[in-house]
């Protein structure tokens, strides 16, 4: 049975899922879907950068750290250099403080440890002031 979830106060939020793993892509896509957030999926940091270079933009990026071709740290730095100012939340299984700091320093607005859950995603949205209002 599906849980009743709070509605977003801000309508038509969009997000980009950046992860090379199909299991995580599927779960993150569904989590965002469930909260009414339209979202696209790309497989690595380079595809995230290319998406923005082609003119696409999003309210939120869920950025994995370990990815081939271009990892999350490199992609976050590159997006910030390009002037992309949207909210970027790092999501990774790596909990090492030093690695977390390196990821944050690349330009993240928030960080959550995988696996993501509904409550962790809501926490990200609240931390990033993308507002949740209970119905």
């Amino acid at each position, binding site marked *: 049975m599906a849980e009743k979830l709070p509605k977003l106060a801000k309508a038509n939020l969009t997000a980009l899922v950046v992860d090379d*793993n199909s299991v995580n892509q599927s779960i993150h896509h569904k989590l965002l879907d469930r909260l009414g957030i339209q979202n696209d999926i790309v497989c690595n940091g380079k595809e995230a950068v290319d998406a923005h270079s082609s003119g696409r933009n999003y309210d939120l990026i869920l950025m994995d750290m370990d990815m081939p071709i271009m990892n999350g740290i490199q992609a976050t730095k590159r997006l910030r250099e390009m002037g992309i100012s949207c909210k970027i939340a790092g999501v990774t*299984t790596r909990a090492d403080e030093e690695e977390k700091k390196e990821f944050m320093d690349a330009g993240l607005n928030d960080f959550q440890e995988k696996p993501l859950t509904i409550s962790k995603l809501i926490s990200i949205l609240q931390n990033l002031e993308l507002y949740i209002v209970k119905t």
Partner: protein
Amino acid sequence: MEKRQFRDYTISLYHQGFLDDQFTELKKLQDECSPDFVAEVVSLFFEDCEKLISNMARALDQTGNVDYKLVGSSVHQLKGSSSSVGAKRVKGLCVTLKECCDSQNYEGCVRCLQQVDIEYKSLKGKLQDLFNLEQQIVQAGGRIPQVDI
């Protein structure tokens, strides 16, 4: 009868350590729009298992010239996806395998990889049985009960 069986079987999978809370989180995402969500995600997971275990086995076959970096990155990925679906035992074995890989313990890696292979196949069978029980309930016109662990 089927509902009772389903409840008991679900509880046993948690109590025996096959599944953890993350599987419960996946169930929360299943709804009328995506009634097969959990089955689809675990199917992706088992595809991951097959591919990554095969990569690691091939790397370990190169005795004397094992690419431990490749084994390490493959087990890191497998640990990630097993964690994401709540496959508790598989995840635990991945942690052990990563430790063997980091210390370049060849025998340990081979032994552990065999256990990972056995464990994911065991979980696959058990989840298939669980999904079959769900189907029986639905086909009999019933609703799948929520099971509190």
